[in-house]
């Protein structure tokens, strides 16, 4: 006699397929609800990470903000009161919970002139140079240092300046556009000081900064220059500060900057508005997901109750033949474990796909978010799975008993 596995016979007795069509809407609802819940978490965490600069280089300024004071009309006309930050104001900014670090721009107080003599182009211009603490520099070059004996000075230029040149000046004046590599290969003459108290150096563009709109040189060079080539005067207070913040769209920070009349880039405010919209959208999605989960979960558990009730007669007879109620409830439960795990796996796959697509779409907008779901998503998936398993196990156990 051909042997059939016992589970096949038990399935025939306990898990008849009649009425299983009703199960599909419940499973679909569970899968959709879980997928939407996970996607809401993905959006929330993705946007939160983008704001906190976890994956940095974000176009919404990540964690670094450059701030300055608003210039009012009186200052503009009289030039009597420069918009500088006092030590008290710097301390007050540093005490904000959202501010993790604060750095000051140090400007050169000596004359600076840069000159270039090439075959097809020559120029000479006065300009300003600044320095910031090294920890605030993005894309810091390996050779970013200077000693007073060195004749070559590394310089970091804002990518905005390069863009201005390539897409504004070069197009307008009919001169060739330049790549970063070309610029980095050029050497400039850097003259500092005046009269007898002057020195000549060679300047080389060592890198470009997305973060800081300025022409930066190492702090050691500015300090040396200010000491030896600047007119004797006290070190002035800084006019610009660079802040490292947890979340540049933080309501408290936005409010503080507004009230203190400090200026920063507009991206900050845009991020703040975007956050409100994204959080509202994720909250709506979360609520929809919970409704779908409740509906799907209710229908699914009702279905398990119905299955157990339909199998009641055969279950009693199996118990009379020597099967233990525990064994039978495990047998029925195992079937639902498989179904629940399959549905949750499907929701997880949808979530991974959604995250990959979202990350790609966000990258096109210049926002960096993780390409794969973070721990929050997996924890949510695990919680939904465990809750469903516990609910179904209880229903089956109750039915079998």
């Amino acid at each position, binding site marked *: *006699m051909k*042997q*059939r596995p*016992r589970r096949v*016979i*038990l399935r*025939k*007795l306990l898990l008849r397929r009649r009425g299983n069509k009703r199960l599909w809407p419940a499973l679909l609802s569970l899968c959709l609800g879980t997928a939407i819940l996970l996607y809401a978490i993905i959006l929330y965490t993705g946007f939160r990470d983008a704001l906190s600069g976890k994956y940095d280089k974000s176009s919404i300024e990540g964690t670094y903000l450059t701030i300055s004071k608003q210039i009012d009309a009186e200052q503009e006309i009289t030039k009597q009161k420069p918009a500088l930050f006092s030590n008290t104001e710097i301390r007050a900014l540093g005490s904000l919970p959202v501010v993790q670090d604060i750095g000051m721009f140090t400007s050169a107080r000596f004359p600076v002139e840069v000159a270039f003599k090439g075959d097809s182009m020559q120029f000479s211009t006065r300009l300003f140079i600044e320095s910031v603490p090294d920890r605030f520099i993005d894309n810091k070059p390996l050779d970013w240092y200077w000693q007073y004996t060195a004749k070559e000075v590394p310089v970091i230029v804002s990518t905005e300046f390069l863009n201005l040149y390539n897409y504004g000046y070069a197009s307008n004046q009919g001169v060739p556009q330049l790549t970063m590599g070309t610029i980095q290969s050029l050497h400039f003459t850097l003259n500092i000081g005046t009269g007898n108290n002057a020195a000549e150096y060679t300047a080389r563009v060592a890198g470009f900064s997305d973060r800081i709109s300025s022409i930066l040189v190492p702090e050691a060079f500015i300090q040396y220059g200010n000491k030896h080539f600047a007119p004797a005067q006290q070190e002035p207070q800084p006019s610009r500060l660079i802040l490292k913040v947890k979340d540049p769209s933080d309501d408290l920070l936005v409010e503080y900057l507004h009230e203190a009349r400090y200026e920063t880039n507009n991206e900050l405010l845009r991020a703040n508005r975007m956050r409100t919209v994204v959080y509202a959208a994720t909250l709506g999605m979360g609520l929809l997901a919970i409704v779908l989960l409740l509906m799907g979960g209710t229908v699914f558990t009702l279905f398990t109750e119905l299955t157990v009730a339909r199998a009641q007669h*055969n279950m009693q*007879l*199996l*118990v*009379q*033949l*020597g*099967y*233990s*109620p*525990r*064994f039978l409830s495990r047998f029925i439960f195992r079937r639902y474990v498989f179904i629940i795990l399959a549905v949750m796996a499907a929701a997880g796959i949808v979530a991974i796909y959604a995250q990959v697509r979202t990350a790609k779409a966000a990258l096109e907008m210049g926002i960096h978010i993780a390409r794969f779901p973070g721990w929050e998503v997996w924890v949510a998936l695990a919680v939904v799975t465990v809750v469903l398993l516990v609910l179904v196990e209880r229903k089956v156990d109750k039915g079998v008993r």
Partner: protein
Amino acid sequence: MRLSINHLIPLPLKQQHNTYNATAWKQDLVFNQGEHILVQGPSGSGKTLFINTLYGLRKDFAGKVHWGAYNLHEITAQQLSQLRAASISVVFQDLRLFPELTVWENIDIKRRITDTVTGYDAEQWLGRLGLGNKLEAPAAQLSAGEQQRVAIVRALSQPFEWLLLDEPFSHLDFFNRQKAVALIKEVAGYTRAGIIVSSVAMNEDFVYDKKMLL
């Protein structure tokens, strides 16, 4: 395993039984393994009630029933399952086959609980009772006599120390009855199992050690 019965009386019979005629109710009885017991009484006298009570299907009785150390009033569901799977087997009066399963599946679902009886043996036993060509037939399509023979083979398809037979041959003709009795004696003899048979009439199917009236 010893079966001890102390003052057993099912609650439905408490007010109506005739203590003078019955030798099963409200008695102190001890049956040792290997003994053959006949429980005889007319229809409605409580034979099925007696068998079902011993098998643990009913809890509505006064007195005590002990299977070895297990008191049926205190036994857990798990212990009762173990007892039914490996120590006590039964042929129900109403047979209780699964009509949606085939003959073989009805046997196999019992046999696979312990897997101590081989599929070959079970198939041979079905053949001896004239059901060798009906293994794949749905139980629902069998005659009452055929169903009774399937129920007998099912009861033998597990290890047992006691076999409870509730009017087991009521649908069988003389020759099929002889074959069934021979098979039961043979299989029960392997382990010196005890047998309790209920019947409406006296019979000499087995050599009875005790006979009780209901």
